[in-house]
């Protein structure tokens, strides 16, 4: 009976996703493919933003962290919530108000020059492919755990299904399927927490899970604080504060909002949502401490918690939730990478008709999906993979983008130097620590964001001053 129900749940989910994807229709123009005609309402911008940032790290990862180190990671996650709110208040409306702007590269091109536009495009496409490879690995892990398929074929299935609807429907299909997937996990995972707190009976010492909660929370938090160095906490806060700021899929949602107000409110709401989301995930981890063995691996906490407290159909629901979590992030990354490739790398050199741009966007979606599937094999750990992407993205783009949007006459030399130096310092530090010093600390890699960001800011200042000096000399 339970098997029939489980198979029914998985099929119903597949059928509903197909229905929603088909209803989103194929995009007919590049404007529709890239920015959904700039007409997204608040609920869809918010739902899609939240569905994109809630990936495997913000679910499986945070439940595991709550299990191991209690509320410590809630504090670190709050840095992420603050980042979204600040972007909503200060950056997203400014970005939305730019005319003829499809991507971050466009925004940088408008503020600096064509060279900066192309460099920002190359960084955007590279980072989208990197993030997508991490998501593809996570999706492969989920299917592999549930069905026991070989890992490569699990990766292929997740990437192929996601690429299929993103290639045809573009941003609109991505946003609409995100809303559906967001609904699935935003309702089911908090329900799992309530279920565990209310119905999962008693712990080994006879207390209820809810009664033991505060005690477990303080024990886990004390352990987390004593086992994590201050420098590592600072690095993690910096990575969560800046590492995902305005990565291409978020920037596309800011640009595709119906108005500047929708863009602002979408980011603020997503920030508030993320704080509550982290609270729920960390609480699931803490509640699991009274139920599952203490030596459970971090990535298995959510899986084992559901297995030991719910009937088999609950496990099928978890599969649906985790596949939703992965696909909603992966589709946004594929679309954002494809749009950045067309708009920032091809269009600055070749005059493209609407149909040709749409075809190049579609081909690029497939190409990035293939790169992500192949790259998934090279990713060792999901959280490490994401932290590396964070550590490159923030120094490579943020100083040039933020300062460019805020000052009156940004200098092209400052933009290009900051992007070049920021990305090179981050990549060099990563290669040194990972392959030469052979750094093993799991989240230790987050620390490289600080020197790389400092180098990018310094390069910006030097470039700004040098550009001004060169101009005055040539006069």
């Amino acid at each position, binding site marked *: 009976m339970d098997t029939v129900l489980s198979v029914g749940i998985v099929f119903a989910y597949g059928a509903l996703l197909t229905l929603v994807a088909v209803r989103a229709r194929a995009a007919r123009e590049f404007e529709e493919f890239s920015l959904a005609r700039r007409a997204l309402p608040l609920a869809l911008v918010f739902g899609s933003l939240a569905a994109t940032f809630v990936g495997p790290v913000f679910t499986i990862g945070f439940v595991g962290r709550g299990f191991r180190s209690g509320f410590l990671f809630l504090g670190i996650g709050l840095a992420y919530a603050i980042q979204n709110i600040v972007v909503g208040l200060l950056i997203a409306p400014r970005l939305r108000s730019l005319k003829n702007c499809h991507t971050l590269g466009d925004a940088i091109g408008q503020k600096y020059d064509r060279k900066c536009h192309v460099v920002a495009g190359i960084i955007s496409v590279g980072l989208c492919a990197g993030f997508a490879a991490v998501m593809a690995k996570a999706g492969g892990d989920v299917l592999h755990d549930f069905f026991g398929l070989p890992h490569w074929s699990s990766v292929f299935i997740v990437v192929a299904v996601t690429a299929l609807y993103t290639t045809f429907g573009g941003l609109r299909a991505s946003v609409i399927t995100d*809303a559906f997937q967001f609904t699935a996990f935003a309702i089911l995972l908090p329900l799992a*927490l309530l279920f565990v707190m209310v119905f999962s009976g008693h712990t080994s010492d006879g207390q209820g899970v809810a009664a033991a909660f505060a005690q477990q929370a303080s024990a886990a938090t004390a352990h987390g604080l004593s086992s994590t160095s201050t420098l590592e906490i600072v690095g993690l806060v910096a990575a969560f504060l800046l590492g995902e700021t305005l990565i291409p899929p978020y920037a596309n949602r800011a640009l595709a909002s119906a108005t500047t107000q929708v863009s602002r409110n979408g980011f603020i709401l997503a920030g508030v949502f993320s704080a509550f989301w982290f609270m729920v995930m960390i609480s699931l981890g803490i509640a699991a401490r009274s139920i599952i063995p203490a030596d459970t691996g971090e990535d298995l906490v959510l899986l084992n918690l559901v297995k030991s407290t719910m009937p088999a159909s609950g496990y099928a629901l978890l599969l649906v939730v985790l596949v939703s979590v992965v696909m909603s992030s992966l589709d946004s990354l594929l679309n954002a990478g494809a749009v950045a490739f067309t708009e920032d790398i091809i269009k600055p050199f070749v005059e493209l008709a609407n149909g040709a741009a749409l075809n190049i966007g579609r081909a690029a979606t497939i190409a990035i999906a293939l790169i992500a599937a192949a790259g998934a094999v090279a990713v060792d750990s999901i959280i490490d993979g994401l932290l590396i992407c964070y550590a490159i993205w923030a120094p490579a783009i943020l100083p040039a983008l933020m300062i460019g949007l805020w000052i009156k006459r940004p200098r092209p030399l400052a933009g290009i130097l900051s992007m070049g130096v920021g990305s090179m310092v981050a990549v060099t530090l990563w290669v040194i620590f990972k392959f030469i010093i052979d750094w093993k600390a799991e989240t230790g890699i987050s620390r490289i964001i600080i020197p790389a960001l400092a180098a990018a800011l310094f390069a910006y200042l030097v470039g700004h001053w040098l550009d001004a000096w060169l101009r005055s000399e040539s006069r």
Partner: protein
Amino acid sequence: MNSLVVAFVVIAALFVIASGIWVAAALIAVTSRRRAARK
């Protein structure tokens, strides 16, 4: 202290569920408006 923490956790869970329902309602509104426009 204990019941306060549990109450806060329950409120957080309900907020997230409410967000999900809100986005689901918007999704249904968007798709049905388009169907009405096609008719």
